[in-house]
């Protein structure tokens, strides 16, 4: 019986653990300035992506400039963004916003194809607002007209 235990132990150590397939992507920092810290992690099991914002403060300016780089795994003739904001486990805000539509491609990258690598450095059409003190979880999801995920991010905003 002892032999069996040893063998089982060796097996669990040697055999590829199933959890290694679903290893999480690293957490990246969008910014850490003054009393605001923003982190994100890709929740698309297939890939990571890069994102940063030019300015980071409690008083968020309208028309922020951002940078992002990623590989498209879907066509983005139509692209939608869902945002869900939580604090202390309760939901505060949910909304959905069209980024690319057939009759209104808002950004120059609209209409690019599956497999293309895109890099965007430019403004987004956000309103200016004040971030209140606290810790927030933000779930962002980009998807196309077939509801296929284009990008997914779990972000944490800590404002002190």
């Amino acid at each position, binding site marked *: 019986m002892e032999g069996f235990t040893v063998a089982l132990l060796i097996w669990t150590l040697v055999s590829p653990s199933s959890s290694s397939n679903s290893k999480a992507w690293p957490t990246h920092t969008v910014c850490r300035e003054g009393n605001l810290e923003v982190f994100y992690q890709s929740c698309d099991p297939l890939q990571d992506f890069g994102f940063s914002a030019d300015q980071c403060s409690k008083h968020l300016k309208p028309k922020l400039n951002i940078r992002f780089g990623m590989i498209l795994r879907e066509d983005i003739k139509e692209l939608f963004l869902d945002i869900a904001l939580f604090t202390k486990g309760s939901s505060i805000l949910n909304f959905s916003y069209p980024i690319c539509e057939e009759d209104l491609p808002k950004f120059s990258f609209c209409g690019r*194809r599956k*497999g*293309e690598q895109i890099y965007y450095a430019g403004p987004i059409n956000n309103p200016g607002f004040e971030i209140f003190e606290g810790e927030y979880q933000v779930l962002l999801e980009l998807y196309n007209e077939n509801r296929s995920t284009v990008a997914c991010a779990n972000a944490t905003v800590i404002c002190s």
Partner: protein
Amino acid sequence: MAPCASCFLLVVMFSASCKAITSSDQMCTEKEANKTYNCENLGLTEVPDTLPNTTEFLEFGFNFLPTVENTTFSRLIDLIFLDLTRCQINWVHEDTFQNHHQLNTIVLTGNPLIFMAETSLNGPKLLKHLFLTQTGISNLGFIPMHNLENLESLHLGSNYISSIKFPENFPIQNLKVLDFQNNVIHYLSSEDMNTLKQATNLSLNFNGNDIKDIEPGAFHSKIFQSLKFGGSLNLSVILKGLQNTTTKSLWLGSYEDTDDQDLTSDMFDGLCEMSVESINLQKHYISDLSSATFRCFTQLQELDLTAHHLRELPPGIQGMKALKKLVLNVNRFDELCQIHAASFPSLTDLSIKGNMKKLDFGAGCLEKLENLQKLDLSHSDIEASDCCNLQLKNLRHLQYLNLSYNEPLTLQSQAFKECPRLEGLDLAFTRLHMKGPQSPFQNLHLLQVLNLSYCHLDTSNQHLLEGLEGLRHLNLQGNHFQDGSISKTSLLQTLSSLEILILSSCDLLSIDKQAFQSLGKMNHVDLSYNSLTGNSIDALSHLRGIYLNMAANNIHIIPSPLLLTLSQQNTINLSHNPLDCTCLNIHFITWYKENLQKFEGSEETVCANPPTLRGVKLSDVKLYCGITAVGIFFLVVFLFLVTVLLIFFIKFLLRWKYQHI
């Protein structure tokens, strides 16, 4: 040592079985048996043996094939569509597709191509679509041109192409779509354009190229299906350069992230020198907008001024009498009358969707648009207390009206009397108020499609849908019915032509057996996301060959008399119901397994009861509902005991009898 060895054997077997599972995870997914397969994101270095030779459509993106050569796909000679997106392909060697005579589409998007051999695309008899997007091409001579005579679309976006000059003898004649998006083309010369001269009705896409100059005459007397110059920084250069050209559509829109100049009216003078049917100018701003701006728009049939910061269209625009379609979405009008509709008497199609301000519906603002057939006023915060005859005055030819996603509208009887020819009416997500039992849709004899989802209707008003004798498609999703029940005398009674009925998310608990009795033509009934039980199926007993969606309801047991009703339908969805998998439901389960092809969503059609079978697919359930083995055992024991007792009793009786003799 022996037990230890056997333990190791056991362990090896365990890990082997584990491996088998992981490798089966790496399998391609079958979308259509023997024909269509998706093998994306599997890190494959070759075509797996599991793919049948008959594969026609293969999505093979995001794998690893540094070299593709004639052995790579040699087995799959029936291929019609081959997607090799981002497979890290460096080399496409000679005769790769030599035996693929049927191949019609090759996608090579996102591969770092170093070289394509002269004969690398030879073989296909009718190669029609070639995607070379983001493959690092800087020179059009890179593309092997020996087998491109039948090419209809060539996608060359996101490369480093600076000149569109094709090599001599490049077969252009059948090309319909030529896509140069996001390249570095700054100059278009006559010589460049002349290489495209053989193509007729070409759609050319130059979006995301910063065109700085066009040689005068470069587009002279050329005919295009569409021309796109989206995101161009200098629109006047383009409008000047397109002199004497003919194109069906011209896309000159801008984007949030392009720093374009404000447009002035004189920039459009170039339009007088060309022939265009449709123009898109989205996200621009015309600084000196006046009626003179549109001086050269006289031939135009379609104009799109989406997101133009417009507060008003100038009154008295002359010469836009030919305009058929006008798109004014995402602007800043206060009142509908500010578009001065009288300037566009031929308009058949008007869209003012997503207005950034609360749009006042006004009165008779569109009355001069006698030919209007399609009107979209959705997402514009329209509110009206007495809708819609005054507002839609004189729109006699209107066939399609979209007022969805607006603020509350108060409707009275015959609310759409001014548009008697309506065929489609969309009021989804707009609250509808009515004072008393009105019939707002009366006289819409031609109405075929009516969307009233999430309108907060008063469904107890039996006259609500009166007069819709031609209605074929009705969406009542998200409305509530009194007591959660549809009665014998519900508002649906009058809709004898109805074919499609959507009653999902209506919080329904029951449907009367006779509720749909007068709806004999229905072929699509969606009752999903309610709390209906199996007995509601009785209401469909008079229907045959329908699509029935009862997903996400409260169906436990389907009594066997109702199986007849189900068996006469075409397609049924019973997924996400708390189905009972005990012997009480044995007739249904047996019938379900015999009729699996009828069912949609069978992956999600699972048992909820008994607890041991919770989550098991109904198609996998095996029930034995005769007498069980234990039952038989007890029965045998019981009979045995009874026999023994009987024997003893008889013995005792005989003994007692004889004792007395």
